[in-house]
């Protein structure tokens, strides 16, 4: 069981890093598109019309992909008030519930996202002339990732029976980042 979980974790490490990198690339390309828009309008006196819909398209995709990564890395903010003060077994139970319900929501998002994709495939995004459904496809990808990451987190919780308090986890994450930064500046 443990080695199977280990394998799953390593696989999802790759998947989530890939999603994060695609997302980061999307953010960078968005910057480039809007920069080109200003350049075109102000310098070339010929405003490109594709830059706005392209950057919106990129924004939706990168938010949804990276938001799924957030389920795994647990960077989405919640009300940690009670979570932080209850005893460890209760916290584990709360987290189990949380990941299960988020996972179910991810599945619902993928399912109805697909409905949206089908329902809007015939319509086109103005100017870009690609199906409107291609934006909603991001919901499907993100939903599937959320399901996978939630399953992994649930299994980890079941095996380890330990959950860090939110403040503790955040402090840990911050300490790691600070360490990285101080190593770099050296």
């Amino acid at each position: 069981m443990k080695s199977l979980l280990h394998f799953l974790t390593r696989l999802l490490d790759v998947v989530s890093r890939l999603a994060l990198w695609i997302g980061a690339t999307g953010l960078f390309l968005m910057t480039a598109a809007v920069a080109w828009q200003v350049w075109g309008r102000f310098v070339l006196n010929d405003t490109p019309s594709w830059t706005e819909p392209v950057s919106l398209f990129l924004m939706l995709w990168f938010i949804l992909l990276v938001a799924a990564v957030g389920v795994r890395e647990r960077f989405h903010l919640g009300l940690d008030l009670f979570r932080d003060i209850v005893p460890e077994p209760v916290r584990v139970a709360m987290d189990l519930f949380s990941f299960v319900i988020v996972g179910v929501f991810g599945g619902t998002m993928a399912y109805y996202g697909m409905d949206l994709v089908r329902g809007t495939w015939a319509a086109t995004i103005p100017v870009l002339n690609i199906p409107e459904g291609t934006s909603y496809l991001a919901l499907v990808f993100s939903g599937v990732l959320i399901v996978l990451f939630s399953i992994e987190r649930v299994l980890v919780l079941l095996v380890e029976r330990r959950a860090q308090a939110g403040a503790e986890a955040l402090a840990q994450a911050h300490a790691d980042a600070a360490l990285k930064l101080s190593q770099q500046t050296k």
Partner: protein
Amino acid sequence: AQAQQVTFRSSDTHPADYPTVQAVEFMSEILKKETDGRLSIQVFHSGQLGEERDTVQQTQFGVIDMLRVNLALLNNIAPITRVPGLPFLFRSEEHMYKVMDGEIGQEIMKALEPHGLVGLAYYDSGTRNFYNSRRPVRTLEDMKGLKIRVQQSDLFIDTMRALGANPTPMPFGEVYSGLQTGVIDGAENNWPSYHSTRHFEVSKYYSLSGHTMAPEILVMSKRSWDKLSAEDQELVRKAAQESVAKMRELWKEREAQSREAVIAAGAEIHEVDMDAFMKAVEPVYAKHVTDPQMQDMVERIRAVQ
């Protein structure tokens, strides 16, 4: 089941006192009277339920029952809806009324049905004109190089380019400050919107180009429509038709008020060299009216006297 009360949810992005909103409220009154309150409409105005594009989808999926939307927003769903928005297609408002109230209007509504929308009535959106902050525009020469804000649509972009301007897509919310700081030189809209957006404060040269008259359309979700009995469908259609006259009356009043107000505030009104403008957009027709069905419709519209 006959006596069951139904309140249709209808969406509009315009504010409560806008003629389209008022017209649908009026339609609701008619329905209530005809059915002893069994059928009525609740209008969610001011875009409470979302932007126009989102509410089109909501109507298609049957989340909301009715929607007032500009025909331009349906262009990417049913290409034939592009036709009434073609530049300089209608000679006058009367010409447009005659076409849209006739069989051509019905044909366009039919084209929406496969996409989950049942057309009920056409409302006015007035005539759209250019305005800018740089200079009076009377000739094509005057249009040269002006950065004119347009909606995200190939047709509008190509039309503006054909007229010699630099079409500049920009989100609606940024247009006012864009005009003020000079990011853009102008925009285009009908009298009431030129007034209500306060764009006249920062862009005072208004040219009577009348380049497009794409009407508004009131549609019903096919899913909601199919739930109605044949008699109720007939009642809804009739009430919608009756609201059209009311809408046009309110619209005319509104247009006159706005026109007066912006002129009083210092806007300058200029006539344009219409023949030259019409000639300049011919390449737009060549590019966008390629499908034989559209070509045929354009010819029939031009033939309507």
